[in-house]
């Protein structure tokens, strides 16, 4: 009899122990959720604060006015035009370069020290602080190549900055294309480049596009490297128009024009003591956040959609 009662107490002791340990599962689940909510709520509070501060300034005039000494009349016309033009240069320079480098590393690169060297450098460049790119651009583009503090110099700087992002995304997209596709192309007599251009690239377009959008979103928000090359903060004019009504109809003068971009405009308003200018800064911040978040969300959605659709 005593044996059996012992068993019963043992069983209840074990049950209690299990319950005790299981309680920790629940407690940690709570802590984990709380930590996540803490992060999310803090960020939501910050964004809400930004929107509330800047809401009053977000009207049509804000987008169509030049910066001004009077906070109430100041706008972001020159800033968003500058951002658009710089992004154009960045996309035209950075994306083809990054995609080509990705194709080489994934499809062509032999296994040797040179390939290792290139790969190490790509990883390394992704970790270089953006302000160091600014110093590179100041020494190389602004003074050695004599581009001055121009849209071209800024666009090229940001192109170098997003290069690792585009390369990594391209490589991932290409790696996801199964080898059987390539073998089928070779089997009907395609050359290497024909295989890549006609088969591998079309299948990896979505992934490459995703990387490109994420890279551009990052470039839009970058402030430090553009400050370093010496972009002006007070620009009350637009760069010369790229198209005109007189021959030769297109002009590239805008490439060498002085400029400002959205983050720099925000920074310059932020460093003023008057509260009215801080409102402008908040409004500019809302514009930047909406742009980058929209681009990032588009990229994530695109990737999700294609991952679901493609079945090899």
């Amino acid at each position: 009899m005593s044996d059996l009662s012992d068993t019963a107490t043992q069983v209840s002791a074990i049950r209690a122990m299990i319950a005790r340990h299981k309680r920790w599962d629940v407690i940690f689940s709570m802590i984990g959720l709380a930590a996540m909510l803490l992060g999310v709520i803090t960020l939501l509070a910050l964004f809400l604060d930004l929107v509330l501060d800047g809401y009053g300034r977000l009207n049509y005039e804000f987008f169509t006015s030049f910066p001004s000494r009077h906070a109430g009349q100041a706008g972001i016309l020159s800033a968003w035009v500058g951002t658009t033009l710089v992004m154009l240069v960045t996309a035209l320079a950075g994306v083809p370069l990054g995609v080509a480098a990705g194709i080489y590393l994934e499809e062509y690169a032999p296994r040797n020290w040179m390939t290792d060297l290139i790969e190490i450098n790509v990883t390394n460049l992704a970790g270089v602080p953006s302000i160091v790119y600014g110093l590179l651009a100041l020494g190389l583009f602004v003074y050695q190549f004599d581009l001055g503090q121009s849209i071209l110099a800024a666009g090229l700087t940001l192109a170098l900055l997003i290069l690792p992002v585009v390369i990594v995304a391209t490589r991932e997209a290409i790696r996801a294309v199964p080898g059987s596709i390539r073998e089928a192309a070779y089997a009907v007599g395609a050359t290497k480049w024909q295989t890549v251009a006609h088969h591998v690239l079309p299948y990896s377009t979505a992934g490459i596009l995703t990387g490109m959008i994420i890279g551009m979103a990052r470039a839009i928000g970058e402030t430090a490297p553009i400050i370093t090359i010496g972009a002006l903060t007070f620009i009350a004019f637009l760069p010369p128009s790229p198209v005109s009504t007189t021959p030769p109809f297109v002009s590239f003068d805008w490439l060498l024009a002085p400029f400002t971009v959205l983050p720099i405009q925000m920074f310059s308003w932020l460093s003023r003591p008057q509260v009215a200018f801080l409102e402008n800064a908040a409004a500019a911040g809302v514009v930047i956040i909406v742009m980058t978040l929209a681009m990032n969300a588009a990229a994530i959605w695109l990737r999700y959609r294609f991952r679901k659709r493609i079945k090899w």
Partner: protein
Amino acid sequence: MTAKPSRFAYQVRRHLPERIIQGLLFMAAFTAVAVTIAIVVILVYESLGFFAHVSLWEFLTDTQWTPLFSDKHFGILPLVSGTLLTSAVALAVAVPLGTIIAIYLSEFASHRLREVVKPFLELLSGVPTIVYGYFALLFVTPLLQIIIPDLPGFNMLSAGLVMGIMIIPYVASVSEDAMRAVPMHIREGSYAMGATRFQTALRVVTPAAASGIVAAYILGISRAVGETMVVAIAAGTQPNLTWNPLEGAATISAYIVQVSLGDLPHGTLEYQTIFAAGLVLLLMTLFFNVIGHLMRRRYREVY
């Protein structure tokens, strides 16, 4: 009878473009190396001009950094201390929160929650840093001033805190990747011994992924060290050799921004100081990045 097209011409037509394309692609890939070389050459070249006027000894030991004043001192220490201190505050926020979130996501959260949270984390890492600078200066600092009344408007605490919030997604996502790389059978072994989820997460998965988690911390430090706009806006621009985060102090990157905003003539000593400072910054981040990547590779090779 027409002559048969020569085999040689055919080969040339087929293979010459291939060669050219391969060459072009290689040149594109080589830009990565060229950019690294260019960064090093530019920074070292301009720094050499700087060190021709200032001895390396003075640079490393002087406790004042006042290149823009008439009484010039060129000691990098105050800038380095500001950089390390703001990064330390950031890490004190990001390491606990990032690790808990990573453990929760990897071991506790349902598949569906993870599918929602992961893209959200990605989205957050896309927020421009200048916006975080705004938060630090105009939201966090006034909030902290309620608790600590004599906190100055520019201080390292609020800059560090916001930087911490900023790198949480990064730390969480890299640590979570490391934990997910731990094979399932190790977890199952632990469950089979009667361990609970929490015991498995803490005593089996976390140690197995330790080097990956540490790598996430180190890569987080590297981000904080190189971060510019948050500190330039919220921590002030006054070099200050102190270990008190309640004071304001310039970091290396904030100094570079401050100088760039003025109009310094090309080739002067003041112009060269930003390259010397940039070289120090590059070496610091390089140090952390190399350690981080070595540790990250280690956990990949175990299984």
